């Protein structure tokens, strides 16, 4: 049975990340940044990657990383989710890194991503479920041609990992591609269009193995990010309802609202078990398929509901641009599509546990 708890080291890691985010990632700053030309916070990214060495958790030490596991990366993601931090952690340090780990010829790229000196993005639409078909570009006389959309965090990527129609996964320098930000529902993890017009690429390995592995890790660890966001929504709402008074009493004393929050608490407690189960399964390689699909089929609806409940229970203030609940709602809703919808994961589960469609 998998270990569903947090170790002392994991709790220490959480505390360190939370301290950094408390100091450098306040909600007002994140909101202001979403309307600037640089929605991503690259100085925060530098502090996480360079200062704390967190971009290399999944990379073995002899390949330039920290030699930790998905369990630790999941703890980092919980905290990043709680702060809706606009950094490319899930996309570069998890998904692109997993893709490189699956490739025979990643070369120095793996160590560069692990150190955080460069940011990578897998050029597969964020909506793609592990095991689903994905768009490729044309390989013509050694150069790549085509257009890919919905690429998360591509705007800050230094290198794009691009699947081509020969079955290969290619490293493309972002400077040789045209990356156009798309106006995105999620302000803190925006997507972009990548256009390749004869861009040179270096073949890393086989896309058919690298892409599903990367997306599976992304789906599994996204559950931890969703857990962090859902916890923020609950904590923030409980705090507000203890304070907010109407009808001469704290609003949080009304049973109709208390029951909704208690129900949400129960779902978040359950999400924690599912998310830890997925992180542990990814770390050990045991039961990964079921653990990841279960976690992602459960996590997205809980995270969305948590943000929706937070908005409703905050009343009018929850509807304002100034209050950060919308950052979580937009992130949670976009994440309910990211790496496959809950429905897509249930469909995959039907095969895995032999509960087949009629």
């Amino acid at each position, binding site marked *: 049975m998998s270990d569903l708890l947090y170790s002392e080291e994991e709790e220490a890691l959480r505390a360190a990340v939370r301290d950094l985010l408390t100091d450098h990632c306040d909600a007002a700053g994140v909101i202001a940044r979403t309307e600037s030309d640089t929605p991503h916070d690259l100085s925060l990214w530098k502090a996480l990657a360079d200062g704390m060495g967190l971009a290399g958790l999944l990379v073995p030490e002899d390949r330039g990383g920290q030699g930790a596991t998905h369990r630790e990366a999941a703890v980092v993601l919980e905290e990043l989710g709680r702060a809706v931090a606009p950094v490319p952690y899930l996309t570069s340090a998890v998904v692109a890194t997993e893709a490189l780990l699956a490739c025979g010829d990643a070369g120095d790229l793996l160590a560069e991503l692990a150190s955080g000196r460069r940011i990578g993005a897998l050029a597969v639409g964020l909506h793609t479920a592990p095991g689903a078909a994905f768009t490729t570009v044309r390989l013509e006389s050694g150069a790549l041609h085509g257009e890919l959309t919905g690429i998360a965090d591509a705007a800050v990527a230094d290198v794009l990992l691009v699947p081509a129609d020969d079955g290969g996964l290619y490293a493309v320098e972002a400077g040789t591609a045209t990356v156009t930000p798309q106006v995105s529902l999620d302000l803190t993890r925006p997507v972009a269009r990548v256009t390749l017009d004869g861009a040179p690429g270096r073949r890393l390995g086989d896309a058919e193995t690298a892409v599903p592995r990367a997306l599976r890790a992304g789906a599994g660890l996204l559950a931890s990010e969703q857990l962090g966001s859902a916890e923020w929504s609950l904590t923030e709402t409980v705090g507000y309802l203890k304070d907010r008074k109407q009808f001469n009493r704290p609003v949080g004393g009304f*049973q109709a609202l208390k029951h909704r929050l208690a129900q949400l608490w129960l779902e978040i407690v359950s999400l924690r078990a599912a998310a830890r189960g997925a992180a542990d399964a990814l770390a050990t390689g045991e039961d990964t398929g079921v653990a990841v699909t279960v976690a992602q089929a459960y996590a997205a609806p809980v995270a969305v509901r948590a943000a929706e409940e937070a908005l409703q229970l905050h009343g009018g203030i929850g509807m304002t641009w100034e209050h950060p609940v919308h950052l979580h709602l937009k992130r949670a809703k976009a994440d309910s599509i990211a790496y496959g919808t809950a429905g897509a994961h249930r469909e995959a589960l*039907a095969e895995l546990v032999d509960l087949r469609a*009629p």
Partner: protein
Amino acid sequence: MTDATELRRRTKELLAAHPPADTDRLDFLRARFDAGLAWVHFPEGLGGLGAPRSLQAVVDAELEAAGAPDNDPRRIGIGLGMAAPTILQYGTQEQKRRFLKPLWTGEEVWCQLFSEPGAGSDLAALGTRAVREGEEWVVNGQKVWTSSAHLARWAILIARTDPDAPKHRGITYFVCDMTDPGVEVRPLRQITGEAEFNEVFLTDVRIPDAHRLGEVGDGWRVAQTTLNNERVAIGGMRLPREGGMIGPVAKTWRERPELRTHDLHQRLLKLWVEAEVARLTGERLRQQLVAGQPGPEGAGMKLAFARLNQEISGLEVELRGEEGLLYDDWTMRRPELVDFTGRDAGYRYLRSKGNSIEGGTSEVLLNIVAERVLGLPAEPRTDKDVAWKDLAR
């Protein structure tokens, strides 16, 4: 400190002195109790060794491997799960010595006389009266939803001893002799057709003061120990994947492709995921307990399982199509155990309706989570400082 090695040694010693194959079942259980291997976390002399509770599994595994008889814990769940921890915490030395051993061996079955027709969720409003006469208490009243009352030798009972005090403060906790001539047990037939539970009428039942647990007027606090343990017992079962109600549905789905529809498929997968997540949540809770970090999550497990059992069994009736129109048996019977898997889908559907009522309704549990875990304000109360006798009823 008694560690796993020491427990294994003592277990082997017990098995050598009382080989299960040649020992009467009850003799073996009594010897196991005397060896301190019944519940290792209990004190020495009372069936335990003062060892960590998590080490019980070590003893159980050794005994199971040796083919030793167990005390049929499902038959005596109320005694083990509720009466015993309460007696341990509040009983006198004499009470502990008298009651715990036959309770654990199953020689004496226990039941719980708490709920009343007028005191369900508001248990503290109970009206069964206990009046002191010398060294005895005379008890009159009616209790309800009492499982095992027809089998029980003893009951844990809460009764009103001071009607002039506010309701939480005028209650006293007793051990009641179920063979007293004033105790009348009547089966209470439920929607499944059978009668797991009873109504218990108490008419001039005489209880010696020596069978009081805790102080006079302190019964509500004593009862909290019982009720907290009840919820642990209900929510804390360990399950393999597909080990709960989802198991029979998944089996039917695999074996009977002709029953499958797209709508049922979507709902089944959703419930399968929820059942697996609930299982993981229970497993995580157990890992926390073993690691000595008990969390508040236990309060939620009963809520989760109640809803899941109801939704899954409801789906199962639908899945069975024409067979879902049938029911296995409406005969009035008195089962010793609740067995969800031994009966048809219709039974599971009906019986699981009780899961969100028994042991605290889901509505009350949500209040408890909101107030004790999330720290939200309590409902404004109109009954706290009013004498029990002046409450609306």
